[in-house]
């Protein structure tokens, strides 16, 4: 078990998400940085869909009540286990009673704490992810609070310390300035409802991520991008990554807790391989959009898969080497 000692922002329990309940109006939820969640679970020998704690704001402190392996992935954090510093993207080991203190986050927006076996909250409608709007999943369908006790599944996970290269380094994109994320997008249904000049503004602007950005969506600020004429769509399904342009001309990127449908015009959609980059983009930081063809987007997903495949292979080799010794 884990006891939460200190929590600052809306931390929550997430797995990869709830993907087949759209017809009931239930969105995906799930980790904002799915690559980091998978990497953490791979480090621990878990099922890659095992639930972890997503932590958006530091400090965050907790106590382990038994000996357990854990990993921190995602944002670059300054953390200590029982007073000993541990780097991010690192598997470590806690003894019963040890306190994990994640003190600060220097880069990125969300840290993932994965534990050997995974956080063992009940599966609801096919996932352990927290559904805030529906108030189910995760721990009682709500953000974590001080005093919460998180059950952990038993695990035969390896316990040696081990680190891996962060996804942000391996999968780095060229030409991104400091505190700016470049994400690839595919144009969406209403792209042609915008004049060439408005389209150009969309591509050329460095969009500021406003403080109203969260797991529901990223609200951006920049020059107003307006369609030739007001567009009122009949409500239709949308997915995380869809970029809507409400009448004020300020884009909103729908994220994991977004509504499952909408009617504002859609100018583009962030590709699956880059959605985690949005999830790790900080409030006050900048975002730029880069147009991508569907086939190139699939190639980008292959790059991401290759990174995860390398992690799986490396972990297998490490475990095998450990067994031989």
């Amino acid at each position, binding site marked *: 078990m884990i006891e939460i000692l200190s929590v600052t922002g809306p931390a929550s329990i997430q797995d990869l998400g709830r993907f087949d309940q*759209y017809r009931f109006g239930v*969105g995906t939820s799930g980790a904002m940085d799915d690559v980091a969640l998978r990497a953490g679970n791979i480090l621990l020998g878990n099922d890659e869909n095992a639930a972890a704690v997503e932590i958006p704001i530091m400090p965050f402190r907790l106590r382990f009540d038994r000996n357990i392996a854990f990993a921190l992935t995602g944002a670059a954090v300054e953390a200590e286990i029982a007073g000993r510093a541990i780097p991010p993207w690192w598997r470590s080991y806690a003894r019963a009673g040890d306190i994990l203190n994640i003190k600060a986050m220097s880069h990125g927006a969300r840290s993932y704490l994965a534990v050997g076996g995974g956080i063992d909250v009940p599966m609801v409608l096919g996932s352990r992810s927290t559904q805030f709007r529906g108030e189910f999943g995760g721990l009682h369908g709500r953000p974590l609070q001080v005093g919460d006790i998180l059950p952990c599944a038993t695990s035969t996970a390896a316990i040696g310390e081990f680190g891996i290269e962060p996804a942000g380094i391996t999968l780095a994109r060229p030409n991104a300035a400091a505190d700016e994320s470049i994400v690839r997008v595919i144009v969406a249904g209403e792209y042609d409802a915008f004049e060439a000049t408005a389209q150009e503004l969309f591509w050329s602007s460095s969009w500021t991520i406003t403080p109203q950005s969260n797991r529901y969506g990223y609200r951006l600020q920049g020059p107003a991008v307006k369609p030739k004429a007001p567009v009122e769509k*009949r409500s239709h399904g949308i*997915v995380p990554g869809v970029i809507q342009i409400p009448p004020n001309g300020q884009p909103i990127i729908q994220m994991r807790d977004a509504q499952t*449908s909408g009617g504002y015009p859609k100018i583009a959609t962030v*590709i699956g391989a880059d959605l985690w980059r949005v999830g790790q983009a900080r409030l006050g930081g900048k975002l730029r959009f880069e147009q991508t063809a569907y086939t190139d987007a699939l190639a980008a*997903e292959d790059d991401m898969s290759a990174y995860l495949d390398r992690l799986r292979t490396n972990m297998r080799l490490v475990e095998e080497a450990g067994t031989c010794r």
Partner: protein
Amino acid sequence: MMVPDRPRISLLGTSALLFEAPGAFDLPHQRRIWALAATASKWTDIREAVPGITNLMLTFETPPRQLDALIAALNDAWDTAEGLAIGGREIRLPVTYGGEIGSQLQSVADHCSLSIDDVVAIHAAPLYTVFALGSHPGYCYLGGMDPRITMPRRQTPLQRSAGGSVSIGGSQTGVSASPGPSGWHAIGHTSWTFFDPSWPTPAALVPGDTIRFVIERVIR
């Protein structure tokens, strides 16, 4: 506005595709969408076929390598789709119009150059059909609203709107199943449970069910 006579098919990134039927926002078109959803949901690589308002979203198990084949199959299936008539239940929903939650009742009346009583009477008159579920858990999109009470969605969506809000957005109306952000205008509220994850089917209503709003009270 020009209505295209062919369906529009567009990508939602790499995880889904949107099919928009040509023609009116009416029950015959929606019945064809339900039929198309039933067909497409059986295709390999399709995770879910999710009806919207005269449109259909297909989410992918894995992104298809051959998009053209999928698009051709969708067009063919639409051309041959016979309307699926679903005989649903009729639900009577008591509504308090106006008040704190329905604070946009006056705005809708002003926008449509109608009195509050007219808006309420026009809104409560039809037998609405559940066209689709979406937005948030258990939320139903309803067909059948009188176009006289149409009002465009908000310029900037609200961060929080109350659960049970009866709202108008464009030419559509619906009742929120829980509190959350909304770009629609709330004109009233109801207390009714639309969703419970512990039910065998988590949503209380399904496409094809019908709703009649019963005027419980009007707060001016």
